[in-house]
């Protein structure tokens, strides 16, 4: 029901610290937007400015075609779910959920109806009479979710709502939130959701689009798939994906009409022609070379000798092996560079640490970034 637009939004804290440096962002009606970034990148600050809990130092925030810069939180059509739940400790679950509605002078019948609906959806009906102190973290967070829901806001704001839950609850509550978004849409309540997290699994699974922030600036806004496969810059490339993308300094070289990426230790990788075309201007210059761990694979030992001379295969020294059950993370040294490979677990291949193995680097998936601007050259 409401589009959220940020125009050149800035935040300077009273102590002079500039937390947000001019954010421009349009969040469409009904969209699930996730803010993600390292700690201290101003995710919460931005969200709190949208909520009206922090003043906007400069720029403009629009919610549903209305400039809300000077509106108090209650008049912005928002609800917020806090990391620490922020349930009123002296009130029962029912009273917690009713408090906001009573302030809006909604009649008693309607309040009861909304609360029982929300409680049913969130499966907290049996808790309505309990106090927050008597409930588990997961239950409290669902109550907080319910308190946000009953207000039927145009925009839901979440500030790391799952980070105090244990791993399992986090998954189930995450699914509840996704479900809530779908359900509200199905009911015709096209609620916009803005969700802050530093957990990229949450970001990737929940977001229609993700906004990656760093030091108060937007690094990239795009769908999860595009962020993963075509990061706009080195920061996004390194931030999205786990384990993180391998990012190495390298030089673009040309020999016999073929373009190579050459590492400082001499290792050379042939760049496919469609990627090579984009870096013709960078021959002889340094770039950041990025390759995701899943695009580095073990060469089966039986074929090692035969393939050692082929393209894009290098001998690496394996330092640590982490087994995940279905897959393995191999932490290896390639010369003085550290790289991570992510391979399917194969019972026939027995990999131990402190061994050397040949690895294949799949250059059709490589990324190149400018050494100075760190912007993507090749994705």
């Amino acid at each position, binding site marked *: 029901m409401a589009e959220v637009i940020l125009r050149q939004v800035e935040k300077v804290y009273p102590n002079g610290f500039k937390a947000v440096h001019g954010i421009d962002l349009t969040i469409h009606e009904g969209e699930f937007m996730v803010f993600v970034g390292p700690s201290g990148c101003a995710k919460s600050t931005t969200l709190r400015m949208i909520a009206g809990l922090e003043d906007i130092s400069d720029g403009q925030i629009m919610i549903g075609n209305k400039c809300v810069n000077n509106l108090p939180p209650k008049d912005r059509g928002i609800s917020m779910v806090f990391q620490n739940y922020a349930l009123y400790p002296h009130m029962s679950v029912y009273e917690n959920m009713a*408090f906001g509605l009573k302030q809006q002078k909604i009649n008693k019948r309607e309040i009861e109806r909304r609360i029982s609906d929300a409680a049913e959806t969130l499966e907290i009906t049996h808790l309505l009479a309990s106090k927050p102190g008597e409930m588990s973290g997961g239950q409290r967070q669902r109550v907080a979710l319910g308190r946000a829901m009953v207000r039927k806001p145009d925009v839901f704001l979440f500030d790391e709502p799952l980070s105090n839950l244990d791993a399992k609850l986090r998954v189930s509550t995450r699914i509840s939130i996704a479900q809530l978004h779908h359900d509200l849409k199905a009911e015709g309540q096209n609620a916009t959701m803005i969700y802050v997290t530093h957990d990229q699994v949450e970001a990737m699974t929940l977001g229609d689009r993700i906004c990656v922030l760093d030091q108060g600036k937007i690094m990239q806004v795009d769908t999860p798939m595009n962020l993963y496969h075509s990061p706009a810059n080195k920061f996004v490339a390194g931030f999205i994906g786990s384990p993180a993308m391998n990012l190495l300094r390298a030089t673009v070289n040309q020999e016999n009409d073929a373009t190579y990426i050459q590492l400082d230790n001499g290792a050379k990788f042939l760049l496919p022609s469609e990627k090579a075309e984009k870096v013709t201007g960078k021959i002889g210059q340094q770039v950041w070379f990025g390759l995701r761990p899943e695009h580095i694979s073990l060469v089966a030992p039986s074929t090692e000798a035969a393939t050692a001379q082929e393209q894009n295969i290098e001998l690496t020294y394996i330092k640590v092996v982490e087994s995940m059950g279905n897959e393995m993370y191999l932490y290896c040294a390639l010369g003085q560079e550290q790289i991570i490979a992510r391979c399917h677990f194969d019972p026939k291949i027995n990999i131990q640490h402190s061994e050397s193995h040949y690895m294949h680097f799949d250059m059709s998936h490589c990324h190149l970034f400018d050494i100075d601007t760190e912007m993507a050259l090749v994705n």
Partner: protein
Amino acid sequence: MSTQSIDLPLGNYQVQQQQADKKQKLAKPATPVSTLLKSASSLLVKHSFLSFAGLIMVFPFVWMLSGSMKSNDEIFSNPLNIFPEQFRWQTFVETFESAPFGLYIMNSFTVAFFTTLIVMINSAMFAYAITQLKFKSRTVLYFIVMACYMLPGAVTYIPSYITLANLGLLDSHTGLIISNAASVFGVFYLRQVFLKVHPSLIEAARIDGAGEVKILWAIVLPQCKAALATLFLITFITNYNSYMWPSLLITSQDLNLIATGIRQFFIAEGNYGLNWSQIMAASTIAVMPLLILFIICQKTILSGIADNGVKE
């Protein structure tokens, strides 16, 4: 009544701390006998120390009570005798009948009650403003309050007297109430307590559409019941017992507070000589309402609040 002996509950923090301590104790593995003995002996030391301290505290009260039932001669011949030779309960009746006690207690009670009520309201609002509202001068305001804390009360008698005289409020309960209606201690204490209320609760309430007064009333105060009960008790006792300032301000007999009343009837007027057993009985009667009040408030003060609803 000394106010220093009351343990001030600072919001939920201490309760949580205690709970955490308890959990830690429970989690301890079984301890060998030697450490058990050690902890038992340290417990013994602790308890005997506390019992001793408690005895010292309670002694003047018990002594007053026993004195009121002794005869005047016995008070001086056997001053340390806790149990009088003869329990003379009729002293109380005689004393009560010999002076308008009901009126004095009523006067003290009304003045103390209204003063305390106003003090609690304005202290809570002031403390809320300097802890939860964002405005530039809030630190300055707090320091002004702290500066007032250092001012000795007696210094304010003359300016207050003149002000009240100009307002035409000398020799009236209204004047007494107004001149005590702001408490630096109240602001200072509630500020400490309100600082412990998690800011996200107040933000949640703002988003829920509650105004600041509503937030103070419906969100902040219910979480600070223990502290409010403490402040109520301290302020009430101070005003109920107050002697110096009312004795300057009040001149009409029937407006006297209990402390001045006792003095006038049994000491200054001297129509009974210095009848110590009656003075003791009068003091006991005067203290009774406070004791009852204390028993009522004690539950709230000790209960604290279980949980503050946010996860740290």
